[in-house]
């Protein structure tokens, strides 16, 4: 049966703005598909996706798991005889898809265009906190303090973040469903979702696929550190709730306390991970791909959270000896709370979302084609 081709010039334009301009140079030699170790033999990428991108066939890309299976190792980019940079093109495609899958979409667009909207994206959450504290009459600073609890009570923090977490979960669910449907249109799936989810989770936890990357192998360690850093941070936050409301431990916890150690360890992982990735990007554009606002906004945000977090902790320690005035400490703390909020809120709309989408794509791939997808 004949299907109609619907090239979209607007998609091509968007792709061009998002760093996918080089797709045009591709002459379909398929070197990329043959050197990519992540691509399944039955459905190799990114040669096909390059052509779709070139033509602006948005619908095909939206329903294609390969876009998410790509880890941007850039083995393809390094070998591409036309310097069409498939790694970058797929990265740009993912950016557009995140924006497109986002709920509500305008937020997706907002984060997607972080290049220009970042002051808004960072400013609003911080202002929100200031306003909140003002309303709660908490802007009056005591002479001295030993714990941030004295400045901003925990209940208030959770009162903000728990609903936000809920919101993030909800919109992620909507976006996730959108992708899952789009993928499903591609063909039948078999087996149970959760049956496949477990192995995929472990695969992701160990970054098994990333290990196959040749050209940008060092990205794996960075990405792995970042990944576990986030997990650690999340767990720590959970533990803290237990510590405060169930165990009733006094805050702040001593540095030697396991929870504390876990928290700081996570921060360290995040710091190291981000460090490696940034270093990679700075080192060699061709091998690691060009940075777009979409990537860098996320990178910066993560960076800010980590740095502000560490600064805030230091501030508290130093405040004890009166080296930092509570006012300054409070300022720093509010800023930290602000960027954390910004990070939370941007999860479904930023690069972070690929955690969700890639997971779904791999699960889909396993359900669509039961055997382990590697070179035949």
């Amino acid at each position, binding site marked *: 049966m004949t299907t109609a081709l619907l090239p979209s010039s607007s998609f091509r334009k968007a792709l061009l703005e998002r760093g996918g301009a080089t797709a045009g140079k591709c002459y379909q*030699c*398929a070197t990329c*598909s*043959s*050197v990519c170790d992540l691509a399944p033999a039955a459905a*190799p990428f990114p*040669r096909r996706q390059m052509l779709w991108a070139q033509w602006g066939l948005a619908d095909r890309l939206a329903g294609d798991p390969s876009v998410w299976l790509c880890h941007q190792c850039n083995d393809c980019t390094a070998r591409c*005889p036309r*310097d069409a940079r498939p790694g970058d093109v797929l990265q740009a495609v993912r950016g557009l898809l995140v924006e497109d899958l986002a709920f509500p979409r305008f937020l997706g667009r907002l984060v997607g265009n972080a290049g220009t909207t970042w002051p808004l994206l960072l400013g609003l959450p911080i202002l929100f906190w200031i306003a909140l504290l003002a309303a709660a009459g908490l802007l009056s600073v005591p002479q001295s303090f030993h714990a941030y609890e004295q400045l901003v009570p925990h209940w208030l923090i959770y009162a903000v973040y728990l609903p936000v977490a809920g919101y993030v979960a909800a919109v992620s669910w909507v976006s996730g469903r959108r992708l899952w449907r789009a993928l499903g249109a591609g063909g039948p799936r078999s087996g149970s979702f959760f049956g496949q989810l477990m192995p995929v989770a472990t695969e992701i936890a160990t970054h098994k696929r990333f290990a196959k990357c040749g050209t940008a192998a060092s990205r794996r360690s960075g990405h792995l550190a970042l990944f576990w850093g986030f997990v650690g941070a999340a767990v720590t936050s959970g533990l803290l709730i237990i510590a405060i409301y169930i165990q009733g431990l006094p805050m702040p916890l001593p540095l030697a306390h396991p929870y504390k150690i876990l928290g700081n360890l996570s921060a360290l992982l995040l710091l190291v991970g981000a460090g490696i990735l940034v270093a990679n990007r700075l080192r060699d554009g061709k091998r690691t791909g060009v940075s777009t606002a979409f990537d860098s906004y996320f990178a910066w945000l993560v960076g800010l959270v980590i740095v502000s977090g560490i600064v805030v902790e230091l501030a508290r320690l130093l405040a004890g000896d009166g080296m930092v005035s509570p006012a300054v400490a409070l300022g720093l703390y509010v800023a930290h709370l602000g960027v954390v909020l910004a990070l939370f809120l941007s999860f479904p709309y930023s690069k972070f979302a690929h955690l969700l989408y890639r997971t779904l794509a791999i699960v889909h791939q396993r359900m669509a084609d039961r055997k382990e997808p590697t*070179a035949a």
Partner: protein
Amino acid sequence: MSDPSLPLLVVGAGISGITAALEAAEAGRPVVLLEKEAFVGGRVIKSHHYFPKLCPPSCGMEINTRRLERNPRVRVITQAEVVASRPIPGGREVTVRQAPAYVNDRCTACGACSSVCPAKVDDSFNLEMGQVPAIRLAHANAWPHRYLLDRPACPPECRACVEACPHQAIDLAARPTEETLQVGATVVATGWRPYPIAKLPELGGGRHPDVIANVQLERLAAPGGPTGGKILRPSNGQPPRRVAFVQCAGSRDVNHLPYCSAVCCLASLKQALYVHEQYPEAEIAIYYIDRRAPGRNEDLLTRVAAVQSVRLVKGKVGRVEPSADGALLLTVEDVESGRRLEASADLVVLATGMVPNLDHGSALDVKRDADGFGRDSVELGLLVAGVARRPEDVASSVRDATGAAARALAAAGRRA
């Protein structure tokens, strides 16, 4: 406007240089033809057959060497290079250095020397595949028909050949000679060299003996080649059962040669027939990006596509790696089926491209483009012909060279 009374200088006696020299001389112009090798014929004489007719280059070369011999207006200087050049009114004065004439033109090619020569050297005519005596006839139809001595390979004090030669044609003490010539216009036809496969390690180039360049297969298929015309796997001398041709090995690739080398598709189609004619059972695969067979060369594509045992697969090979069974494994996406294959082959031919050979032109300071291809400087009476100018096949080179000869004569004003 260069001086018509001065001879035309043609640098390089491959098919383009010979053609330019002969066409100018047959139009009545004195010509000096320089060749750095000891014999004329350049790259074409090292090919087994021409596409698309699959006829031996020596057939046309026979006519051309006859023309060279019969034409008193052409002076051929072999083993010679231009080492200096300066403009003079109406042309240029060039300094030509000629390698020592260890074997002079008293040589009758009787072979007495070769049979007593104790030293063996790599056979440069057969691209270093196989060994030959240090003094030998470069190839069956070598012209000038004279033996060639690889002097550095001589054992100390060895005079075996000198004593064996009945015609006093060998002088081991010969020295290089230099000569200054005043010439009018110049045609540079220094041709090309193959892109080295060692620069393609991901395709197994220089890593596995059974990964060879297309130019090597020409010699393996040629009766005068190292295997007497039998196509055999270099690793074990066995006939290949599965042969893979990797197109655009280095060409059309910004990491290597950004241009298309224009002949590799046809060369591989032709070579697929060499293999098929010797081994009708052999499975042959040609992995390509585009099948480029312009003009009537399309017939060759049609002919090869009709051969049962030949598969033309759209998809550029990404990797060639040795496999457990001693064969080679090619990784490539078959674009038409959209699947990635791991094809096995026991002989892999890299269809490498052409790199312009303008090191010789450099003494004449030829203008060059980013890839080293020469550009005409008509105002200086300096014209470039053949593959030194652009990647092209033999027929186009001949056309090109004839045109260049005409432009050179016109630049010099004609007097025939």
